[in-house]
Structures are given as structure tokens and as C-alpha cells.
């Protein structure tokens, strides 16, 4: 193998490109920390004093901690239930693909991947309102159920590559089907569960449409709050950007610490 030296032209191009990615984030942080007078002097410059009052005002205006709590509860509960239930459904399907019921079920779930949410959006609001499910519990149930389409597809593919022998040994030892799943199969699913966990976490945390059509004022999530308070922000950009930054920060912190893990989790899942 020929040992190549650093490719500087490509490094420079990649570095320049990354500035395009970072620039809007720099602007967000800079504007969030300025006051209107500083903005008038120069939009681009670094803030001179740090105007943390923007943040305290934004926290008050948007009831930030309430929204943060809602987003956190919804996301964590959704991810946990997706990992526990969707994997179990996929296990039953993967181990019974020869039976017609399970085969039909498999194609029934994955065909939903092609149905855009907007198709069912209008009736879903009616169904959930009739059942008094237009709240946090209801939205979690919907996320977990809708997750089946994609997750059953991914989990089933993975489970079918796991040999039967392990389960047979457990059955001989007298383990029940549920017991076999929890003790033997579920731990083996860790790599693909990591991928599915990250994807569901990101999509649930950042989802706007389902909260928009289902949730009332007390259960607003972080993206929804930004939308609802646009009217108040229209004159005070520093307040608006402080609020945006606050809403982005929890995920940015997670990403900062778990970046390597998140990216490798997503790539290993995609190659499978």
C-alpha cells in the first residue's frame, strides 16, 4: 500500500465548505448575545457585552422549561417504547416468515413507509380528538405505532441474520418465547437498536407537524413553541434568536458529547 501524504487542496476545500455550514450557527449565537444597539453597528461582529437578559426574557416569553420538559418526556418515552415493542414485533415476524399471517403483516407494516403523513393527517386529528388522545400520551402512542413501518423493516432484516441455535438451546432449557426474546435476542439487537434509537430520538425531538395538529398550549414542544411565539418575536430579533438557540442547545450538547457514537451508529445501520 502506498502511503499518501495529506491532500491539502481537498483539506482546504472541505474547510471552506464547513464555513458555510457553521456561518448560520455563528450568526445565531452572535445575534442571541447582542442588543439592538450592537446590531445596528454591525450584524456580523462578535457581541461586545454578553446580553444574557435575552435568554431570561426568552425563557419567560416562551415558557421554555415547560416546553423542554414536554419535549424530553415525549422523546425519551417514545424511544424507549419503540426499542422495546417494535423489536418484539419484528422478532415474531422474522421467526415466522413462512406463515402467511406474519408475512402479510410484514408487508402491511412496511408498505406504510410509502404513505406520506399528510394523507392521514386530517382524519388522524378527528380520531385522536374523539378518543381524547390529543395530548402527550396520545402523541407518544402515535409515534411508537408509526415507527413500526420503518423499524420492523430494519429489525426484521437484522434478526433474520441471527442463527436459530441460540434460541433452541434456550427453549430446551425451558425458557418461554417472551423469555427467549428478552434474555437472548434483545441484547443481540444492541447495534441496530442504537441506530433506530438515534433516528427516532432525532425525528421525535425535531418533529413539528404532529405536535402542531395535536397538542394544546400546556403540552407545546420546543419547535412548536418557536412557531407559536413568532408574532412576539417579529420586532425583537435578539429575543427570537436567544429562543432559537435555547431550543437548539439540548440537542447540540448531546451531539457534542456523543457525536462519534451517533455518526457511527447511523452509518453501521445504513450499511446493514
Amino acid at each position: 500500500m502506498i502511503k499518501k501524504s495529506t491532500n491539502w487542496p481537498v483539506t482546504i476545500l472541505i474547510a471552506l465548505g464547513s464555513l458555510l455550514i457553521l456561518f448560520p450557527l455563528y450568526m445565531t449565537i452572535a445575534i442571541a448575545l447582542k442588543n439592538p444597539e450592537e446590531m445596528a453597528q454591525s450584524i456580523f461582529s462578535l457581541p461586545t457585552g454578553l446580553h444574557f437578559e435575552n435568554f431570561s426574557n426568552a425563557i419567560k416569553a416562551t415558557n421554555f422549561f415547560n416546553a423542554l420538559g414536554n419535549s424530553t418526556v415525549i422523546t425519551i418515552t417514545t424511544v424507549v417504547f419503540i426499542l422495546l415493542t417494535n423489536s418484539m414485533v419484528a422478532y415474531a415476524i422474522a421467526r415466522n416468515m413462512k406463515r402467511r399471517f406474519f408475512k402479510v403483516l410484514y408487508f402491511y407494516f412496511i408498505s406504510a413507509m410509502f404513505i406520506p403523513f399528510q394523507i392521514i393527517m386530517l382524519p388522524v386529528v378527528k380520531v385522536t380528538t374523539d378518543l381524547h388522545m390529543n395530548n402527550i400520551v396520545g402523541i407518544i402512542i402515535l409515534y411508537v405505532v408509526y415507527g413500526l413501518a420503518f423499524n420492523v423493516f430494519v429489525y426484521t432484516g437484522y434478526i433474520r441474520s441471527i442463527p436459530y441455535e441460540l434460541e433452541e438451546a434456550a427453549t430446551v432449557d425451558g425458557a418461554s418465547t417472551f423469555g427467549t426474546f428478552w434474555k437472548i435476542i434483545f441484547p443481540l439487537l444492541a447495534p441496530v437498536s442504537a441506530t433506530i434509537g438515534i433516528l427516532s430520538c432525532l425525528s421525535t425531538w425535531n418533529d413539528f407537524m404532529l405536535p402542531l395538529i395535536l397538542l394544546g398550549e400546556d403540552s407545546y414542544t420546543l419547535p412548536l413553541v418557536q412557531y407559536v411565539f413568532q408574532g412576539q418575536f417579529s420586532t425583537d430579533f435578539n429575543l427570537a434568536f436567544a429562543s432559537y438557540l435555547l431550543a437548539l442547545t439540548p440537542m447540540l450538547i448531546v451531539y457534542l458529547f456523543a457525536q462519534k457514537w451517533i455518526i457511527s451508529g447511523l452509518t453501521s445501520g445504513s450499511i446493514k
Partner: protein
Amino acid sequence: MAKRRVAFYLMTIPALLLFFAFHTFPAIQGIYYSFTNWDGFSDSFDYVGFKNFVNIFQDENVLNSYLFTFKYAIITTILINVISLLIALGLNAKIKAKNFFRGVYFLPNILSVLIVGFIFNYLFANVFPIWGAKLGSEFLSQNILGNSDWAWIGIVIVAVWQGIAYNTILYLAGLQTIPHDLYEASNLDGASRWREFWSITFPMLASFFTINMVLAMKGGLMVFDQIVALTGGGPGRSTQSIAHLIYTGGFQGGEFAYQSANAVIYFIVIVVISALQLKFLQKREMDL
């Protein structure tokens, strides 16, 4: 053995029932309402046959939203795939601080589409025009989102800025599956870098290309959050996507049944496009 079989049914039947109740049943309901004249809140409504469907084909707003959505989806799909493939090639080359740059390029993927849209909304209104003015261009010193001919370009820019993140990571994963000896062999044969790309890299990425094209196209056809954050469908209705039209007409415009019919057509369009894309791109994979 019978006990085992019962357990497998117990594992799946609750999921089947919930999925039917919250996904299939609403879909059937949507189809049912599309044949009525329900406005979404009245107590009574009538069956109107295919009237909604006939009207939709003559509705200029619907036609506009399809034209905008297709134009937007095709352009973003092409741009996202070309740019993310280039970035993936760059990140796969021997460069400094590879992990840092990989982290930077993936960053937009973790951010809320809506909030990113709000941030760019401000940049388009207050920051980019400053540069445009410095360049002395009257066109570039205006807010592009306020121009009904060019607002869609602004939405494309934001979608591409954010959309390249995930596709780059998938292409990068694909590049790492290509065996190294293929390149060594082509080096020995004296193949040019250009030739190497078209004869080795691109064919070996075929399945990643398929999945990225389908994902980007589907995302483009379903565009909603960016529209809400950037233009609200305006100026006029120049950037109203199909999803946005279904939402605003169905929930705020008293057109529940009418937009349900629109949603049924939209569904058929998406299924046909996804199927055609898969068929065409997979055939290409086979040919290679």
C-alpha cells in the same frame, strides 16, 4: 409448540390493532371523506361522488402547488445528491482533522428543520442583502423570499444546507465499503482519477445512490416545515407546497373533504414516483 405460537401472536396482534386504528383506519376515513362535502366541523355533510376530484383537476391553486412541489423536489434532490457525494469524496480523502469536519457536516441533521428555517428567514431578510448591496447588485440586495419568482430558490438553499448532512454520511459509509485493492489495481493500470470515479467509485455506490435519491425525493415532495418557517406559502401562493395546501385548506379553510381528495391524489402520485424511481434505479444497479 402451540404455546410458542400463541406467544408469537400475542407479540404482534396488539401492534396490528393499534396500527390499523391509527394509520389504516384514518387512511380509509380520508378516502371516505374525499367523496363528501364535509367542511371539518359541521354536524352534517352529503355524499358528492367524484365532484371533489373533478374540481381539483381544474383548481389553479392545486395545480400551482404541484408545479412548485415538483420543481422544488427535483432541484433539491439533484443538488443534495451531487453536493453530498462531493463532500463525501472529500471527507474520504486523506485530509487533516477528518473527524472534526465529519462532525461539522453532519451537524445540520440534528437541528430542527423549523428552527433552521426561522434562522435563515432572518438571514435572507437582513444579512444576505447586505452582501448583495456590497456587490452592487440590486437583485442580490433584496430579500429573495419576498420575490414571488425567486422565493423558491431560498427554500431550496435551506433544504440543501440541511439535507446534505444525512446523505453525505450515507455516501461516506458507502465509500468505506469499496475494497481498496480496486483502486490499487486501477493505479497500476494508470487510470486517471476521473476514469477511476466513473468506473469504480460511482458503480460501487449504486445502492447508496438509489436509497439517497429516493429519500431526498420523498423528503422534497413532502416539504412542509421549511415552507411554514420561510414563506408561509407566499408571496401570493408562489411557494405553497402540496402538504402546506392540504394543511391550510383542510384545517383553516373549511375544505376538509376537498383537501382529503387532494391527499388521495397526492398519495397516488408519491407511490407511483417512488415505485418508478426504485424500478429505474435498481435496474441500473443490475446493469452495472
